[in-house]
């Protein structure tokens, strides 16, 4: 059984090595899970939804938001250029495999069912550049979990190449 899709995992960040955290105003009537990606709209943070906001990602939600917000502030880990993440891969909403052919290419993000993916269909913002494959770095663990590059969703190691410009 391959590894199921999950929200991005932060592998490391450039110095300072610990994650920064910000308390930002959230858009009303939205819910999300910890680890989902967010973007800024009209001065508030809101979750990436489908490919909306996927090319202008601002950060990662630090906490779950189970009920609709009411103009409250929430904790967010802002992206840092050089930060490395482990991301499941989608192709515009359909789980997709990953291969060495994806390495070096920048893609957008995509969120479905509270899970943020790397979207190999989107290259508008190209904030997330694939730098390696999960199976290459964790060969034994992947083998034990029956996860290969052909598994869907594939798992890519990406680096944040740029911050959102809106």
């Amino acid at each position, binding site marked *: 059984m391959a590894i199921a899709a999950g929200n991005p995992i932060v592998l490391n960040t450039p*110095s300072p*090595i*610990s994650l920064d955290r910000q308390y930002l105003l959230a858009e009303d009537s939205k819910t999300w899970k910890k680890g989902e990606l967010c973007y800024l709209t009209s001065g508030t943070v809101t979750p990436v939804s489908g490919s909306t906001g996927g090319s202008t990602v601002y950060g990662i939600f630090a906490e779950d938001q189970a009920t609709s917000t009411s103009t409250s502030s929430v904790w967010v880990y802002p992206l840092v250029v050089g930060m490395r993440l482990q991301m499941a891969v989608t192709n515009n909403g359909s789980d997709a495999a990953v291969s060495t052919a994806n390495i070096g290419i920048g893609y957008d993000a995509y969120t479905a069912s509270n899970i943020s993916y790397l979207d190999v269909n989107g290259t508008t913002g190209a904030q997330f550049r694939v730098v390696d494959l999960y199976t290459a770095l964790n060969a*034994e663990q992947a083998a*034990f979990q029956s996860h290969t590059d052909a598994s869907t969703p594939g798992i890519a190691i990406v680096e944040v190449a740029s911050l959102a410009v809106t």
Partner: protein
Amino acid sequence: MAATQKYQQGIAGRDSMPSLYDRTFDRIVKRTNEVPREHSRFYRFEDWNLNDYKEGEIWDTLDTPPENRDSGRIPLMNLTEGYNKTITSVRRRSGLIIPKEAVEEQKHNMIARALEGLPKSEMRLEELLMVTLFNNGFTSETTGDGSYLFASDHYFEDPRFGQWANTGTSAAFSTTSFYSAWSNMQGRKDPKGMPDFKIPATVFYPYQIHEDVMKVHGSDKYPQNSLNAKMPELFGAFEPHLGHYLSSSTAWFVQAKEDENEKGLVFVWQTRPEYKEIHDGMNPDMVLGRRLRMSCGVGAVHGRGLYGNQGA
């Protein structure tokens, strides 16, 4: 002065006294190192300072001394050169940091899990590496002779004596299939075609077939015989060894009685796991930071002391 006050005034900071977390982490590492590895009994451990570790098979086999009179020329024996295998170590690193804030927010369980998690992740990797040869031994892991670890086409160094096998027809574990394994090991030959028998010592199997193995191991009667026929002692004369990392739920393996230096599976340590402090000059508020660095590799030089059956 209470510990809390000391902490608030910065007296009990990491700079001024040994951190409790530092000492706890060191104890966890020591304790983890003492945990027996599930697969270590199948391996010979070597320490090596280069990336590649190369080892050749060694057979102590010569032809029998030929008839020769004192006046004749002494026949000199030629040793058969064995196959060799190169094992390449892979460098791995990992780390964790615990900021002061995590302590102040009382995330103690999370911190405890992180402290235990790093050494445990290293231990898990050792197990995964070691079980790889069993999981892929029928399909991709090869020994020095180029055949799969468990194969019926292992070549003798002396081609005149053909091939030998350390696997058999796929069959569920039973008295019949175990006897085939016993028989295979008893019938092993050396490169000169002379008997070089092995005695089964351990049966290594996935937990899914534990009952099947226990029926054979724990009984003095044939499990499948309605007449309660008495079973020879050889069926109870092995040590069952349960595997939790095996990917197949049917494959089972037999390890022969072997001296440490006869074992064909080799685990090479280039750098044994070492932990060092992580410091961040831009952020002094880390209670603990540790990085793990290690380098190792596994490989099968030969499979002479092993038998593998893919099961059914």
